[in-house]
């Protein structure tokens, strides 16, 4: 049955985003900003609740939305990431309305992408997501760096979108349908014709641009650096997770485009980690790290060996490893960006700006330590289990060489993660060039500590976290 109720999660987000724009015109104060923050958080929570209640209806809304408990799990993960971003992002009172509205639109794009039913929905979701992000990146429109970053992102993501649309058109020309289910049947029924191969190839290039997978990663460091720190966190976490989620229904492509996908994955893992080595600016380091992490996620994708599940399986396989990793990586990287934003206000943060903060701001620094350790995938952080699950899925699928490349990549990557820690803790504060630390509300600090604590505590009970990701089933 097709009913408006099935798109309630999306409806709540878009209506409340517009509502927030209207409300924000009423007043222009700090308390208004807090009100908007809470309204946005409530909107996301409401959307999450409606997701749970409308879950499991299958393919609805003219085939645009695929609502199973599997897609609901992913959407909930993405919404919780966006909720974290909404609650922690620092913003000035006079621009709060736009900021939160854009974050809600980003959340909308993420939810659309996490439960796509056809190719048009993929395009729609990616555009909603990207357009909000263009604005978020260049949000400090008086700063040249910020504008340049926004334009870079606009142009390159635009190229990506062009590939995506043209690829979709070629796919439609081959199979006469945009529905993913029909495309899957078509792709599995007969060897793929050249036109289809080409179409899906362009589709993957488009997605590769959005994901910043090597060789389409060049924009990432510039954009991450130019964006306000919390916006960069959103690009790295929720936006990336949503794009991977949109790719998941296309697992049948592993039959025809296996080589392309493994190359994308391997190249991202190697290049992302290598390029990070010589970087001296923190946000660029995290950008390269996110390129590498896309490689790990694609490694998990390449390890998929079964049809899309209706719900997350109780045991760990490639599907659950990917969803688990989106959650784990998302919170680690978003937390890292948030912590950096809480340590330094300026847009460009070099490693030298972190000198001695381990002593002057011990709590936030300790949180950053935890997030960085989790990104590096060291034990005693949930990032370790995320990586273990992904790599073991790859081992199990027989992708041994690719998994070993990934392991080596993460060993290389450790170098730049450690550099952050060294600059944070092992240089005395006197070496620090004067930089202002932003004021930070207790609530945001508490949220940051709670997330860091979660990353450590869940590393002892990864099964329990997975149980939560599955929605407690």
């Amino acid at each position, binding site marked *: 049955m097709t009913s408006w109720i099935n798109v309630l999660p999306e409806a709540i987000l878009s209506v409340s985003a517009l509502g927030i724009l209207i409300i924000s015109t009423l007043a222009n104060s700090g308390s208004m900003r807090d009100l908007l923050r809470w309204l946005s958080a409530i909107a996301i929570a409401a959307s999450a609740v409606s997701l749970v209640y409308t879950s499991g209806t299958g393919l609805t809304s003219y085939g645009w939305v695929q609502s199973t408990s599997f897609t609901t799990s992913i959407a909930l993960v993405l919404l919780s990431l966006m909720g974290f971003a909404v609650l922690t992002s620092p913003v000035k009172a006079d621009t709060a309305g736009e900021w939160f509205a854009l974050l809600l639109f980003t959340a909308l794009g993420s939810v659309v992408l996490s439960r796509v039913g056809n190719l048009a929905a993929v395009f729609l979701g990616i555009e909603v997501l990207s357009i909000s992000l263009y604005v978020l990146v260049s949000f400090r429109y008086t700063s040249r760096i910020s504008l340049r970053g926004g334009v870079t992102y606009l142009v390159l993501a635009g190229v990506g979108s062009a590939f995506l649309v043209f690829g979709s058109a070629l796919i439609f020309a081959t199979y006469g349908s945009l529905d993913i289910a029909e495309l899957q049947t078509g792709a599995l029924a007969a060897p793929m014709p050249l036109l289809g191969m080409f179409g899906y190839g362009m589709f993957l290039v488009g997605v590769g641009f959005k994901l910043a997978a090597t060789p389409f990663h060049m924009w990432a460091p510039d954009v991450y650096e130019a964006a306000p720190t919390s916006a960069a966190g959103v690009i790295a976490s929720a936006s990336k997770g949503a794009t991977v989620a949109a790719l998941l229904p296309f697992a049948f492509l592993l*039959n025809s485009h296996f080589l392309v996908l493994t190359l994308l994955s391997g190249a991202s893992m190697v290049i992302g980690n290598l390029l990070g080595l010589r970087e001296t600016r923190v946000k660029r380091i995290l950008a390269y790290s996110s390129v590498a992490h896309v490689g790990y996620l694609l490694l998990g994708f390449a390890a998929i060996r079964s049809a899309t599940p209706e719900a997350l399986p109780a045991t760990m396989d490639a599907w659950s490893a990917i969803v688990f990793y989106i959650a784990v990586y998302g919170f680690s990287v978003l937390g890292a960006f948030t912590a950096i934003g809480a340590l330094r206000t300026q847009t460009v943060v070099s490693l030298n700006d972190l000198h001695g903060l381990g002593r002057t701001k011990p709590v936030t620094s300790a949180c950053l330590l935890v997030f960085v350790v989790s990104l590096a995938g*060291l034990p005693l952080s949930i990032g370790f289990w995320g990586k273990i699950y992904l*790599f073991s899925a790859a081992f199990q699928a*027989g992708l041994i060489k690719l998994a070993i490349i990934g392991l080596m990549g993460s060993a290389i990557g450790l170098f730049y993660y450690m550099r952050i820690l060294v600059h944070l803790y092992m240089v005395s504060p006197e070496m620090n060039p004067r930089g202002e630390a932003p004021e930070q509300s207790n609530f945001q600090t508490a949220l940051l500590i709670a997330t860091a604590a979660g990353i450590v505590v869940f590393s002892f009970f990864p099964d329990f976290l997975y149980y939560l990701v599955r929605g407690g089933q």
Partner: protein
Amino acid sequence: MLTLLLLIPLIGIVFTILAGRVNATGARVAALISSVLSLQVAYLLAAKARVQVVELDRLWIPSFGVHFALRADWVSAVLVLLTALLTVFAIAVSWKEIKERVTSFHVWLLLLQVGVTIVFLARDLMLFYLGWELMIIPMLFLIGSWGTGRKEYSAFKFVLFTFTGSIFMLASMLYLFYRNIGITGVPSFHLDQILTVQLSSTEQWWVFMGFLIGFGVKAPLLPLHTWLTDAYPNASTAGSLLLSGVLSKTGVFGLFNLAIPLAPDAFALFRPFLIWLAMAGVFYGACIAFNQRDIKRLIAYSSFSHVSFILLGIFIKSDLGFQGGVLQMISHGLSTAALFLIAGAIQDRLNTREFANLGGLWRVAPAMGAFMLFFAFASLGLPGTGNFVGELYIIASALSYHWIIGALASLAVLFAAIYSLKLFTGIFHGPEPASLTAFPDTDNRENLLLTSLAVLLILLGLFPSLVTAPLKNAGTTPAATAYSTLHQQPTMIAMTDTTTPAATVAGPREEAR
């Protein structure tokens, strides 16, 4: 009791942080109390493990078959005891040396103890790996934050080497894990389960290489030792003491506890090569040690040489060699700890470690000189110390392996004598340098620490059976027995299922056809 060994340092960390809020001495005292309590428990554990194996096994992460499985046989128990003892020493040594950020220093120290204890006790591969990695971050800070010289660089190098090594180890572990799933269908990292997996010789080759690189870095085995040159000398005294005394033993322990039992055929294949590598390490370390101008660097290389000697005993794979290896692990842990302690004391007083700026200290500090003389002799294998018996056992086993190896091993003792004497004479004999300022002799704290180390070494030298006797008893050291009699073991499970895990999973590619 096993859990208690892990819990005490963790609770100690909490108390250290709380006490550190009052003042620095509070943190020191809290950490010291915690480490003494651990020592007590470790002693009780050793007393118990002397009679029978102490075990604990709980399923921890069901979906992945990770067990919280700890087991203390005699070898593990003795090494845990050594760890607890050296942690006490590390805290005592740092009492005056560490003046900045005292609380966090002790927190890292106790966390390191937890990691090492897990490594020595773990009976589950994943738990072992967690403990192994848990050692990295504390060590990064112990070297990088409280070290001397190019400390950040040294810390970095250490972390990169160890972590890269452990990645290879992890790959081997995951491979074994999936082979086990392929055979039994049940995920399990429990070592008892993994040990039943029979691998083909090619698979063993790869698995063994992974473990060898992982453990070889830590021990260190010859070509993988380059991080040591920086990390040992530039760490704080406590850091050097733990690195050489305990952390190097984790590498040796991993080799005979995991690598060799898990891939016996590959080990048999590599054995001659590994023996020569260890032999080369002994001489290489000794020669370079002699050429050093820095006390701590000299001790670092001598430690490298001695650990290679221990590895020689392990690789020879006879009962005698193994007993000698274990005995030498303990004795070397104690003697090298003492040497680093003295080097730290000298550096603390004079702010230099160069032989060029030292000399003639016997006149002003006879007590320290006497201690140095004793421990230098101990490290070259003075009869009456544990080092002598350990070396003797290893040389005897080397002789029974091949006379050339035996002869070379005996020659190595001579080499050790040369650099040990240089260490002593360079500091305490000869003319005093003009720059020498007031040099107080050892104080009561240092006397107490050094005397207790000396007593322990003599005790081991006079009664080596304290350590070695239970090694002969299969009831208390099943792991050791399994290791030394591997070649006689019958095949435990005939391997019938040769399908790889990947092939058993139906993929979309199959569906397509």
